[in-house]
């Protein structure tokens, strides 16, 4: 009788142990599965997002940019570049001209640096085609040295329209690198005369940070200026 009882108890104990062990093993497996699944989920999610980014096809791109003056832009805005004397001959200054030279002084010249507004259309993920409108201006006054009365104001402004091609050669989710080149025309107006000439605009290196709404900075040459920065919106 006593041995049967002991045997029954031992069997129960072993069964309990086995169940417990099985339970523990199962729990371990469960938690490992969760971690695995969680990690897997994150990886899959990232992959999914990456794939989602790659598959994002913006169609339109608007940009507003401010540039520091460049050599070409400055020379075009503030010189007689392209102007020709009416007669093409030098006229000797009169006595009145000589006195006027010293009777008046010029105030500091203020420049509105190149401001550009640009629209681009995405042909594919890395190539856009668009147009850029650029504006800049100069202003100063000529005043009497004694009365400080303004004799006249002296200013000029330039407007350019550039057809622009941009190439993105590195694309990540939040950062892109690109270069661009454009050609078009620029007009400069001063008093009652104007001049229209072919003009170019190049971006040697540009970086975009953001997604739909982004900021960007560029280094280039041409009518947009030398160093440029601005905001853009893609949709």
């Amino acid at each position: 009788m006593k041995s049967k009882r002991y045997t029954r108890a031992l069997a129960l104990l072993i069964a309990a142990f086995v169940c417990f062990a099985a339970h523990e093993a199962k729990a371990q497996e469960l938690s490992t599965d969760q971690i695995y699944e969680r990690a897997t989920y994150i990886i899959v999610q990232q992959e999914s997002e990456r794939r989602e980014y790659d598959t994002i096809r913006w169609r339109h791109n608007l940009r507003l940019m401010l540039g520091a003056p460049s050599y070409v832009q400055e020379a075009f805005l503030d010189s007689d570049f392209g102007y020709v004397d009416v007669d093409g001959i030098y006229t000797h200054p009169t006595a009145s001209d000589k006195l006027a030279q010293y009777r008046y002084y010029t105030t500091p010249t203020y420049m509105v640096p190149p401001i550009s507004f640009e629209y681009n259309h995405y042909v594919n993920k890395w190539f856009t085609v668009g147009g850029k409108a650029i504006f800049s201006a100069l202003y100063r006054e000529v005043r009497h040295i004694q009365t400080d009365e303004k004799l006249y104001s002296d200013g000029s402004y330039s407007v350019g329209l550039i057809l622009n091609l941009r190439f993105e050669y590195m694309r990540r989710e939040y950062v892109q690198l690109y270069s661009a080149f454009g050609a078009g025309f620029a007009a400069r107006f001063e008093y009652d005369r104007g001049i229209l000439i072919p003009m170019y605009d190049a971006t040697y290196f540009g970086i975009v940070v953001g997604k739909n709404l982004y900021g960007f900075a560029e280094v280039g040459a041409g009518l947009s200026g030398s160093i440029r920065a601005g905001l853009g919106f893609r949709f």
Partner: protein
Amino acid sequence: MKRLFRYVTIALALLTATACEYDTGTEPQPERLAREIWNIARDDLWRVNDALTFAACYNYYLNIEDSETARQYAISKLNNPSDITVEGNIHKIVYNTSYETTYSIIFDMNGERWNVKRTGGNGYELNIEQKRSNYYIVDIEHIYSSESTGYGIVEGTLNYDENGEPEIGFVGSIVMVDKDESAVSPLTITIDIIEEVSFYNVNIIRTGRMLITAEDALYGTKDEILVTVLRDVNGQAIVEYDGKQWGFYI
């Protein structure tokens, strides 16, 4: 989209306000203006003095008795004329220039009143009247140069040194108008001589005080300078303009 346009408009307005100073302009230079006015007026004074000096030299020449002395004087003081002819009161002094042109200075002497006329580009006409032994009044009918034409009245003294060099001093008013034909509205320089102007070595101003006005009809301006020649310092003057003073070499 409306919000986007609003932001773009505000951004554009802010961007245009970022105008930077491109260059510092020029400083007012009243001293240079005063200098330029003086340069123009000084040239006009030289022209008048040349005309008066020539007339004074011819007057001295007429009183030289020795013919050889007179010939030497004509060479040195009358610029070596090609010919001098006298017909009654009319004395004609002719010059043949190296450019194969001729000009003459004609004296019409009627007692104490002389009319002196020079032909050619830089011509003039003077009416000289002797008031006292060495005191004259000169009515400048007209006096031309390559850049201006003028008129005026001056009066003053005439003396000679031991070499027959005239010493002329005069006060009065001279008006010169820029005759540049392209100037619709000319520049008029008025020289009011307050204290006697005198020269030595032909063109060096030794004494004088002048109020010089430059009226520019093109710009509608009137600039005045006061020039005071320093007696004790040869070739220098104090020039005043707009309440400021500078020392000039004249």
